[in-house]
């Protein structure tokens, strides 16, 4: 056991850091630092800079553009991205749809979609939740009825993040209406957002931002070749994907940057021991989570196995830390100040409440650990 980076690892980190210094546009990092809204163009601009460098999808197999980095290098890279204040890489294509296609997709699907995801030519979103199906996702009702060489899709998705930017959506739909084995009646379908019958309606959250949407499907014709894996195997795909999703929701690099920033602008409050100790406890929790995360990655590297269900703890603690940081930021910001920065911080606090709800609420994550890891 050695928690220090080797000289090779440090050299790699320096290479990433100096590349970022030269290639991350200041307009973008400034927007990130000031908690400003990032437009679709902002997100894609950064995506394409990384794609050009060959660093946009490190975890992919090398033949599709992956970097071949080991887990420590990948971790260092993400941490440096977080530190530098780079815009987020939107996960729906790069780290959700792509792993699914790599695992379950046909050759034709891989050829068709992966290069476009890599280059940022297609913007993806995820169609999972429905008005009546949140935590109980397998109760979803959006139905796809096979009619010759296509499916006809009817129904509604909700909380669809960035659907208003998206060119494509991957959806869980019900292909078997018999309702006997509800999980086996679900399929994984890819849809072009330009298909007639798809309507996107914004949902404005309490921070005033438009990030999520309702998506309506009204007799939407989807070619059968857009089915991923077999009909009725959508739940298998979804479970595989949830494991991947949870590995990324800890957002430790990003939280480290927020912590550093919080320390900077709360320096005056550090004489208040109550505040100082709350901040230290958060820093400790984050430090612990960073090592826990690395221990998970290390275990994956050694065993060659995908993450177990206990990876849910990264989502639970990671999101709690994100919320804890925004609470302290609110507290540290001058309550009388009504400038852009303080207002952005307040909005950040409001917006961050979603993190313990999305991607499987933290209560669902605890159910998963209880059932899958502890055998309860």
């Amino acid at each position, binding site marked *: 056991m050695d928690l220090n980076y080797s000289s090779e690892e440090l050299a790699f980190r320096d290479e990433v850091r100096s590349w970022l210094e030269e290639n991350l546009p200041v307009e973008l990092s400034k927007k990130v630092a000031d908690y400003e809204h990032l437009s679709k163009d902002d997100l894609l601009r950064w995506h394409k800079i990384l794609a050009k460098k060959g660093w946009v999808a490190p975890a992919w197999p090398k033949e599709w553009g992956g970097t071949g980095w080991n887990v*420590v290098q990948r971790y260092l890279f993400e941490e440096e991205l977080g530190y530098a204040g780079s815009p987020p890489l939107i996960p729906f294509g790069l780290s959700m749809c792509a792993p699914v296609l790599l695992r379950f997709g046909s050759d034709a699907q891989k050829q068709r979609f992966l290069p476009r995801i890599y280059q940022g030519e297609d913007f993806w979103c995820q169609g999972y939740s429905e008005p009546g199906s949140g935590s109980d996702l397998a109760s979803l009702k959006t139905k796809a009825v096979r009619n010759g060489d296509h499916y006809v899709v009817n129904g509604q998705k909700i909380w669809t993040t960035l659907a208003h930017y998206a060119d494509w959506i991957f959806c869980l739909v019900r292909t078997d209406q018999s309702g006997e084995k509800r999980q086996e009646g679900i399929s994984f379908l890819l849809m072009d957002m330009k298909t007639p019958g798809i309507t996107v309606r914004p949902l404005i959250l309490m921070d005033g931002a438009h990030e999520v949407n309702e998506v309506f499907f009204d007799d939407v014709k989807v070619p059968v070749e857009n089915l991923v894996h077999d009909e009725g195997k959508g739940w298998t795909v979804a479970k595989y994907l949830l494991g991947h999703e949870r590995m990324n929701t800890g957002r430790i690099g990003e939280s480290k940057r927020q912590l550093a920033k919080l320390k900077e602008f709360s320096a005056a409050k550090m004489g208040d021991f109550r505040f*100082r*100790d709350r901040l*230290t406890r958060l820093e*400790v929790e984050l*430090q612990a989570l960073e090592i826990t995360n*690395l221990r998970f990655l290390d275990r994956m590297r050694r065993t060659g196995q995908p993450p177990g269900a206990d990876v849910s703890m990264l989502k639970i603690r990671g999101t709690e830390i994100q919320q804890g940081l925004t609470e302290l930021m609110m507290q540290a910001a001058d309550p009388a100040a009504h400038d852009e920065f303080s207002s952005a911080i307040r909005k950040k606090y409001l917006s961050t409440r979603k993190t313990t709800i999305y991607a499987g609420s933290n209560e669902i994550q605890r159910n998963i650990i209880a059932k899958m890891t502890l055998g309860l």
Partner: protein
Amino acid sequence: MNFDYNEEQQLLADSVRRFLQSKYQFEDRKRIIAGDGWSPQVWATFAEMGLTGLPLPAEHGGFGGGTVDLMGVMEAFGEALVVEPYLPTLMAARLVARGGSDAQKQAILPAVAEGRLKLAVALDDTGRAVLGLPVADKVVVTKAGSLLLVDAKKVALRSFRTLDNMLAGDLALAGAPAEPLGGGREALEEAVDFAAALVCAEAVGAMKFACDTTLEYLKTRKQFGVPIGTFQALQHRIVEMYISYEQAKSMACLACSKIDSSEDPLDRARSVSMAKIKIADSARHVSQEAVQLHGGMGMSEELKVSHAFRRLTVLAAQFGDADYHLARFASL
């Protein structure tokens, strides 16, 4: 960077665990506590297994091991709630190995490695509640910032058991013959950080036991005709216990690893303080929940879980509780 024990460390931890599982069961431990509070046979086995010499320099009969080498041993000790005076002996031996004269090292370290000598450390000038003192041969004491080595039998005042049944005692120098030991305040701070890191590892082991035994109880205890582990209110609580344990383990890794590798005392102290804050909070959380989820049985003297509660309560505060380390962290 890597996050696992090497083969040698794993083998050692496994063999310690096997020994404790056969010869240091809860009933054996009860007998030891009811007797002298330590077991010469167990101590002799520790020496045979190389545990007493593990972190000592090779030229003085030891194996030159580091803190990470000890981590798996301490975890196993934590699981079995070992009461032998191992930690005070290692801590004092470290002070001798680092600050002692050649003659002192030669007189003390090989005897420690062979299991013939047990040691203790008085952490401050008050000489109160010195762990392991009643059975120690030599004790390192502090006096106005310098270290002295004295014969434990000549300074011991009274003996008692701590809340978790460890041997401890008060001492007074009162003109007893003392040899100066090199090192001073900085050496003592380093040794305390070393011991605190080992306490972190030991607490991680005790937490592992508390989590596992509680999980077992949730699966077997029935109420309303079903195992109580089917209730979501309890499921979420035990999940939180396991998360606390994993987070604590991560910080124990950090603390032990930094003791071995950090050349900057500030960096070392910061890491140990961060670890101790996490271990203290986790130990409190896990031990309290373990008792609560056992219901009335958790309060019972008969069950090992109540002894794990006592041990974790003490470990949370040993070498500084969370408040102490929050303040120290802020001052560094």
